C-alpha cells in the first residue's frame, strides 16, 4: 500500500539528489525555531520561561536528529536530553530560593563588542578551514567492512560496544563518578514532600510503570539490530523510577545500602569483568572472539542498561536517598 520512499525525499541533502522545496522549508523553520528557543533558553527574562524554552529546544533537537537520519541519537535525545534533563532542571528550579528564580532582568556581564566579534570570526574561520580539510569518507566504509565480525547488526551499537567499547566503558565510569560526586555532597536535596494532593498521579504511575519496564527491555532487544540499546533503555527505566518517586514512592528501606550500590556499579562491573576476562582468555583487553561477540555484548548491554537506569535516577535525586520524614527536607 505504501509508496516506496522516493530517494529525493528520504535523503535530505545527502550529496546526490535534490531536496524538495518542502523539505528545505521544513529544515529552515525547524532550525530557525531551535535558534530562537536556544536564545530564549539562555536570555529569557524569567527563569522559568528559560527552562521551558530549553525543554522545547530539546524536543526540536530530537526532530532535527531525525532529519539528519540519526534515529539512534533522536532516541537518546528524546529520553535523556528532553525528558530527564528537563525534569532535572524543573526540579532544581523548585529548590532555588524565590528571589534567585524570577529576576526581572537577567544580570549580564557587559562585553566590549569589537574584540569578541573579531575573535569569534577568527575562530570560526579556523574551524571552517580545519573542517574542509577533513578526509571526506570518514570511517563509514571501515566500519561497514568490519561489521561481519561485530556480533550485532546495528553499526552504531557495533561502534559503541565493540570497536570502541573502551569509550563506552569510560562513559559509564563518568556517570558513576557523577553519582559519587553528588552523593559526596550530602543527602538528596531534591526530595521533598510535595504539598499538593494529586489523586490521578499514582494511578498514572501504576498504569505506566509496567510499560516503562516493557519498553526498556524492548529497546535493549532492539539495540542489537537497530536504533536502541543501553542508553535510551536505561533512560526509560530511569524515567519510570523518577515518575514513581515523584508520585510519592520512596526507595525501600532494605534497598538503601548495599543493593543500591551494587545496582549502581553493575554496568561498570560487567564491563570490567568481560574486558579483564577477555584479556585473560584471548590476551587483549576488550578483543571479542567473533563467535562469542554476540552473547558477550548482550550481557554487557543488559547490565549496563539496568545500571544506567539506576544511575540516572540517582542523578535526578541529587544525593544519597534518605527518608523524607527524617531529614530529607
Amino acid at each position: 500500500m505504501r509508496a516506496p520512499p522516493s530517494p529525493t525525499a528520504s535523503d535530505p541533502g545527502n550529496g546526490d539528489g535534490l531536496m524538495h522545496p518542502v523539505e528545505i522549508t521544513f529544515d529552515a523553520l525547524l532550525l530557525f525555531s531551535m535558534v530562537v528557543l536556544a536564545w530564549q533558553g539562555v536570555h529569557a527574562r524569567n527563569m522559568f520561561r528559560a527552562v521551558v524554552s530549553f525543554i522545547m529546544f530539546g524536543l526540536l533537537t530530537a526532530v532535527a536528529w531525525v532529519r539528519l537520519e540519526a534515529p539512534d541519537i533522536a532516541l537518546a535525545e528524546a529520553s535523556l536530553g528532553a525528558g530527564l534533563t528537563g525534569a532535572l532542571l524543573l526540579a532544581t528550579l523548585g529548590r532555588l530560593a524565590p528571589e534567585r528564580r524570577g529576576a526581572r532582568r537577567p544580570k549580564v556581564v557587559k562585553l566590549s563588542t569589537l574584540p569578541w566579534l573579531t575573535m569569534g570570526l577568527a575562530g570560526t574561520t579556523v574551524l571552517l578551514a580545519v573542517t574542509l580539510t577533513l578526509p571526506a569518507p570518514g570511517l563509514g566504509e571501515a566500519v561497514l567492512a568490519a561489521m561481519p565480525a561485530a556480533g550485532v547488526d546495528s553499526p552504531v551499537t557495533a561502534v559503541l560496544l565493540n570497536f570502541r567499547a573502551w569509550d563506552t566503558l569510560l562513559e559509564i565510569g563518568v556517570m558513576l563518578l557523577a553519582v559519587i560526586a553528588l552523593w559526596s555532597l550530602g543527602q538528596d536535596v531534591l526530595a521533598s514532600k510535595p504539598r499538593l494532593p494529586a489523586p490521578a498521579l499514582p494511578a498514572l504511575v501504576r498504569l505506566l510503570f509496567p510499560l516503562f519496564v516493557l519498553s526498556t527491555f524492548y529497546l535493549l532487544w532492539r539495540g542489537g539490530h537497530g536504533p536502541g540499546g543501553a542508553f535510551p533503555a536505561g533512560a526509560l527505566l530511569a524515567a519510570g523510577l523518577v515518575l514513581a518517586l515523584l508520585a510519592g514512592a520512596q526507595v525501600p528501606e532494605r534497598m538503601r545500602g548495599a543493593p543500591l550500590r551494587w545496582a549502581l556499579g553493575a554496568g561498570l562491573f560487567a564491563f570490567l569483568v568481560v574486558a579483564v576476562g577477555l584479556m585473560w582468555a584471548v590476551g587483549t583487553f576488550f578483543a571479542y572472539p567473533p563467535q562469542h561477540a554476540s552473547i558477550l555484548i548482550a550481557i554487557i548491554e543488559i547490565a549496563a542498561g539496568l545500571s544506567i537506569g539506576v544511575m540516572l535516577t540517582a542523578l535526578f535525586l541529587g544525593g544519597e536517598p534518605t527518608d523524607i520524614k527524617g531529614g530529607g527536607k
Partner: protein
Amino acid sequence: MSLPPGTLFLLASALLFAIGAHGLVTCRHLLRKVLALNVATTGVFLLLVTLGRSGTAVDPVPHAMVLTGIVVALSTTAVALGLIVRLERRRP
C-alpha cells in the same frame, strides 16, 4: 534551490554554539550558564553529525560519539545543578 547539502544545519550549529558560548560568558546566573553550556554542546553535536554525512556511507562513528556526548553532558549537568542548589542554600 541548490544549497550545498547540510548548509542549513552547519549554519544552525554555528549559531547555537555562538549563543551558548556568549551566554556562558555574559550571564551571571549559574543556572543560565548551565543552560548555555547545554546549548553550545548541542551545536557541537549537530556539527559532528552533519559533517559525518558528507561521505558516501553514513558514518556511524560520529553517531556513537554524540551518543556518548549526550550522556556525559547529562551527567555534568546533574552534578552542576546539585552544586548550584547547595551553593544557593549556603548563600544568605
